[in-house]
Structures are given as structure tokens and as C-alpha cells.
């Protein structure tokens, strides 16, 4: 049994306390350790993704206990893709935090950052629902610390809202888990998939309630309208590198929905009929509309980006809610794009804040480092709004293509296309106010000019943009890979076999289930 699967969880879990205990007062050592950890994480993630790319499902039994009794980690193509995305994002975000000096504005940034990575990666790799809850809590409690990093009244207030909303989400998650356990007597995902399919048509009341509760929890995480209220102020008030890292947290919700609702409650299951098309799809469409309307209406750049994230999450959920292989493949392509584009825009918004002093969308004198910030914003906005030639455009094409045969295609096409136009208007308005109107105002005398951002900050934001360009150039290969992932998701038998029929302590594979 290979132990490499658990390495991306153990590495940050050991590194974080080491940073707190050994390097507490030395920001230089903290930076070096944290950066080395993330580089190792990227290497590990590439290794795991390579291993899973041919459809191999690797299982890791903790303590060698067999599946329904012990906790298992499962590395299939979907989870390794998400781990790879997380580690690449974390690398760029960490570079930015170091370059811009955000990590030195409060204490323990690097330790919390590593714990956050541990939680996110654990949530992607686990094959057990209760373990998923525990990793959610790990990533949440680290994110509470990161969210209020560097303090300030506005940030503390937004932090209270963020923590309260997520506590409600965690409580709902526990209710759902309790209901699932009471109905089926197991919390292992593969075992659940087998047992839920066996529940008779007259006894589905409990499991239906649990399925809806679970969907609510993941929809809170994914900031689906009307459960999105926590996102705008907490992302806008969070420190920029933290907000950029949070771009992956909404995707944890999307990942959980894909995993649970293809494996445990597949679209063909009679008990949860109507959950996807009747409830998830309209909510996702409203998310797209509200997100893009928010982009147009935002008064500050950070809120604009936060609403753009809501809109792009809505787009992801629209495609997921089709629950067809083409839909999931398009959604996975769009998830990668939306994470990178959202994170890049949060970093660029911070570049603007550094050079300008404020993020209000009003005409102000030219900012420091305007040329480079403007160029990055231009590319980031093109990607997020979905204009050619970047991956946002390709992603939307895939979304529209996947929804072409759906019965609700008219609604999807109308909402996606109109809201794209609104989003383009919003970004164009913000860009021209920030960068072009500034030329028409005389520079104010007597005010000290803001320093231009650190070159490393530009490198980090540029790195995310470069990843986006790579995502566009290799779109064919990446979409081919996501199609394979989707095919693997819609054929869960090998996954269940690999989890349940691998021998370990307490296992009786010859008797079957």
C-alpha cells in the first residue's frame, strides 16, 4: 500500500505546528519553510495526478482497517485534479503574500496557511462523509484565523458574520450526517452508495431529508443564491492573499456536490428525483444573474470581484446540475478556470489598493504602478467575463454546448448569455473608472504618493494569469482529461470495488455485502 496519498495532508499538518513552535519570531524562516512546504506539495500533487490520470483509483486505509469500519482516503482522477489545483493556487498566493508583505502584518499567517491547505486537501481526498466534516472544520477554523489576519474593525465585523454563517452550516452538516447514519448505518461514501440504492421506495423519507440537508450544506459552501450572503463582505474584507486562497473554498462545496450526488445519490436514484433539475438548476441560474448584476452594481473593486466569484460559481453549478458526463466535464474545466481567474482578480485588486490607497470605483488621480496593474486587470477581467481568447470563453462555450440538449436549454442559454453581457459591462466600467478616468484628473499636490507594489507581487499575480493562459492553450488536453474524470464518476462500480473489496483488518471480502 502506497503511503504517498496521505503525504499532502501530513506534510502541512506537521509543518504548521513546527512553524509556530520553532520559527515563531523569525518571519524569514517562516517564509522559507512555508514556501518549501508548498513546493513539495505541488510536486506531490503532480505525482498523484500522474498516477490517477490513467483511471487508477488508489486507496489508503488508515491504520489498515478495512473500508466500512476504518477511514479511507481515495485518490481518483477527480480528487487529484482538485489537489493539484489547490497546490498550484497556494504556491502563487504564498508568493504574493510574501511579496506584498501581507504575511508580516499579523502573526501566524504561515502556520494558518498550512492548516488551511491541510483541510482543503483532506476534504478532497477523503472517502468518508464524517471525515469530510472533520476536514471541513479544519479548513474553516484555519480560515477564521486567516480571515481576521491583520485585524481592523471592518474585518472583525465581517469575520463574525463569516464564522456565524459557517457554524450554522456545520450544524446542518451534522444533522445531515446523523440522519444518514440513522437511515443506513454507515458513513463511508462507497458503502453508502450501495446501501442507499437498496432502500425500498416506501422508506425513503429519512434519506430524502438527509440528501436535501446535505445539498444545503454544500450549497452554503459553494455560495449558491440564496445562501450566498456570507460571501461578499467576508471575501471583500479578508486580506487579499486570503481572499485569493478562499477562491478554492467555494470549489470545495462544488466538489462535494459532484462527489456525493454522482456516487451516493446519483441522478437515476428515484428517492432524490427532482433535486437536481427542479431545485439546483434554478438556484444556480439565479446565482449567475445576481453575481453579474452585483458586478455591475458594486461600488468598490473588491466587492465587484466577490460578486464575480458568485457569478462564476453559479455557472459551475448550472453545469453540475445537468448531471450528464458532458456537463460534469465542462463544470470541471470551468472550476479550474474560475478558481484561477477569481484568485488572480483578488490579487490584482490588492495591487490596485497598494498603488491607489482605496478601491472605490470613482475617478481618482493616477496610481502608482498603473501600467502593469492595468494590464493584469485587463487580462483578468477578460478571463472572468468570458471574452475570447481566454479560458473563460472556452469554459462558457463548453457549458452552453453541454446544456444544448437539456430540456431547460432556453433558460440556461438566455441567462448565461445576457449575464455575460452584464458582466462585461461591469468590468469595463470598473476598468475605465480605475485606469482611464485617472488621466483626466490633475495629480493632487501635497499628498504623499503611494509606493508601487513589490515586483514579487506582480510575479505572483502574473503567475496566476500565466496558469490561465496555459489552461486556455492546453484546453483540448485538459477537457479530454475532465471528460475522462466525468466518465469515471458516472461509472462508480470500480470506485466502490476498490474501496470495499480491498482487504484490511476486520474485512470479510468473500462474504460480500
Amino acid at each position, binding site marked *: 500500500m502506497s503511503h504517498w496519498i496521505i503525504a499532502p495532508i501530513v506534510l502541512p499538518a506537521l509543518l504548521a505546528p513546527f512553524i509556530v513552535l520553532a520559527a515563531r519570531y523569525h518571519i524569514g524562516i517562516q517564509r522559507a519553510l512555508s514556501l518549501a512546504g508548498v513546493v513539495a506539495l505541488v510536486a506531490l500533487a503532480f505525482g498523484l495526478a500522474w498516477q490517477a490520470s490513467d483511471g487508477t483509483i488508489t486507496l489508503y486505509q488508515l491504520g489498515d482497517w478495512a473500508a466500512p469500519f476504518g477511514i479511507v482516503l481515495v485518490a481518483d482522477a477527480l480528487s487529484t485534479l482538485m489537489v493539484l489545483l489547490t497546490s498550484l493556487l497556494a504556491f502563487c498566493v504564498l508568493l504574493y503574500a510574501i511579496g506584498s508583505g501581507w504575511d508580516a*502584518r499579523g502573526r501566524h499567517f504561515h502556520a494558518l496557511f498550512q492548516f488551511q491547505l491541510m483541510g482543503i486537501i483532506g476534504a478532497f481526498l477523503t472517502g468518508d462523509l*464524517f471525515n469530510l466534516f*472533520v476536514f471541513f*472544520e479544519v479548513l*474553516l*477554523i484555519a480560515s*477564521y484565523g486567516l480571515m*481576521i489576519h*491583520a*485585524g*481592523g*474593525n*471592518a*474585518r*472583525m*465585523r465581517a*469575520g*463574525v*458574520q463569516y*464564522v*456565524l454563517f459557517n*457554524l*450554522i452550516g*456545520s*450544524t446542518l452538516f*451534522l*444533522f445531515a*450526517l*446523523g*440522519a444518514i*447514519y*440513522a437511515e443506513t448505518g454507515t458513513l463511508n461514501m462507497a458503502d453508502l452508495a450501495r446501501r442507499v440504492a437498496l432502500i425500498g421506495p416506501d422508506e425513503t423519507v429519512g434519506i430524502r431529508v438527509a440528501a436535501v440537508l446535505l445539498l444545503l450544506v454544500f450549497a452554503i459552501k459553494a455560495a449558491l443564491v440564496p445562501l450566498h450572503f456570507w460571501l461578499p*463582505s467576508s471575501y471583500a*474584507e479578508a486580506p487579499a492573499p486570503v481572499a485569493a486562497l478562499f477562491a478554492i473554498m467555494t470549489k470545495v462545496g462544488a466538489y462535494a456536490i459532484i462527489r456525493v450526488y454522482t456516487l451516493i445519490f446519483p441522478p437515476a436514484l428515484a428517492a432524490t428525483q427532482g433535486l437536481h433539475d427542479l431545485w439546483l438548476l434554478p438556484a444556480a441560474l439565479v446565482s449567475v444573474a445576481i453575481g453579474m448584476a452585483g458586478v455591475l452594481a458594486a461600488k*468598490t473593486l473588491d466587492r465587484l470581484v466577490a460578486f464575480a466569484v458568485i457569478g462564476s460559481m453559479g455557472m459551475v453549478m448550472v453545469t453540475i446540475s445537468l448531471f450528464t458526463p458532458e456537463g460534469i466535464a465542462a463544470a470541471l474545466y470551468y472550476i479550474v478556470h474560475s478558481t484561477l481567474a477569481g484568485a488572480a482578480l483578488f490579487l490584482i485588486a490588492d495591487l490596485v*489598493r497598494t498603488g491607489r*490607497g*482605496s*478601491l*472605490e470605483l470613482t475617478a481618482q488621480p493616477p496610481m502608482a504602478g498603473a501600467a502593469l496593474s492595468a494590464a493584469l486587470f485587463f487580462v483578468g477581467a477578460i478571463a472572468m467575463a468570458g471574452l475570447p481568447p481566454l479560458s473563460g470563453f472556452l469554459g462558457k462555450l463548453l457549458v452552453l454546448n453541454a446544456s444544448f440538449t437539456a430540456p431547460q436549454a432556453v433558460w440556461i442559454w438566455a441567462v448565461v448569455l445576457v449575464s455575460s453581457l452584464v458582466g462585461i459591462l461591469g468590468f469595463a466600467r470598473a476598468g475605465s473608472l480605475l485606469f482611464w478616468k485617472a488621466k483626466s484628473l490633475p495629480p493632487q499636490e501635497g499628498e504623499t504618493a503611494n509606493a508601487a507594489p513589490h515586483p514579487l507581487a506582480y510575479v505572483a499575480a502574473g503567475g496566476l494569469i500565466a496558469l490561465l493562459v496555459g489552461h486556455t492553450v492546453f484546453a483540448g488536453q485538459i477537457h479530454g482529461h475532465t471528460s475522462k474524470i466525468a466518465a469515471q464518476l458516472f461509472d462508480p462500480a470500480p470506485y466502490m470495488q476498490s474501496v470495499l473489496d480491498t482487504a484490511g483488518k476486520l474485512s470479510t471480502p468473500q462474504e460480500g455485502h
Partner: protein
Amino acid sequence: MEFLVASAIGILTAGGIYLMLRLRSFPVILGISLLTYAVNVFLFTSGRLTIGAAPILAEGATAYTDPLPQALVLTAIVISFGMTAVVVMIGLGAFLGSGDDHVDDQPAPETADAEGRS
């Protein structure tokens, strides 16, 4: 017994939801605490109610109760305790910093933006 436990969970949940919908952070935190108590009891009963039975293998035991919910509820208690402590600290920080403990967004004063953040 079932009725007693079920109604206790129901009353705790109802009180928790009522308090959670209040405007100020102290009642909201209390409401979330009540809700976590409710969910802890709920998790505990998800393995069915059994009286006087051993949860782990023992000499001469004839009946067993499900041990897993007890492990789950321990995890849930620890996590919710920690989370409540965190939210109390952050809420206290926000209250002492701004002199106001509303949980909703207040209209921001004009000057708060430029300096207050970085």
C-alpha cells in the same frame, strides 16, 4: 423515552433557531450553542436508543449499543466547543473595536475605507 429525547431535540432546535435570527451577536452565539447541543443529542440517538447495554465487547454482555455515534458525538462536541470559543473571541474583538455588536452590515462611515483596512 423516545418521545422525551425527540421533544428535547425539537425544543432545543426551535430555541436555537429563534435566537439565531436575532440581530445582536450575543443571542446569535447562544442560539448556535443551543443548536449544537440539539445536534449532539440528535447524533447520539442516530444509533437508536438502548438502555444499559455495553458499547464495546465485554465479558458476559448480552446486548450491545452502537458505539459509533458516541465516537461521532465526541468529535462533534470538541469541534463545536472550539468553534464557539473562536466565535466568542472574534465577536468580542469586533464589539470592543467598533462599540457595536450588530451582526448585520451597517452603512459604513465615509472615511472607514482608506485607512482602516491595511
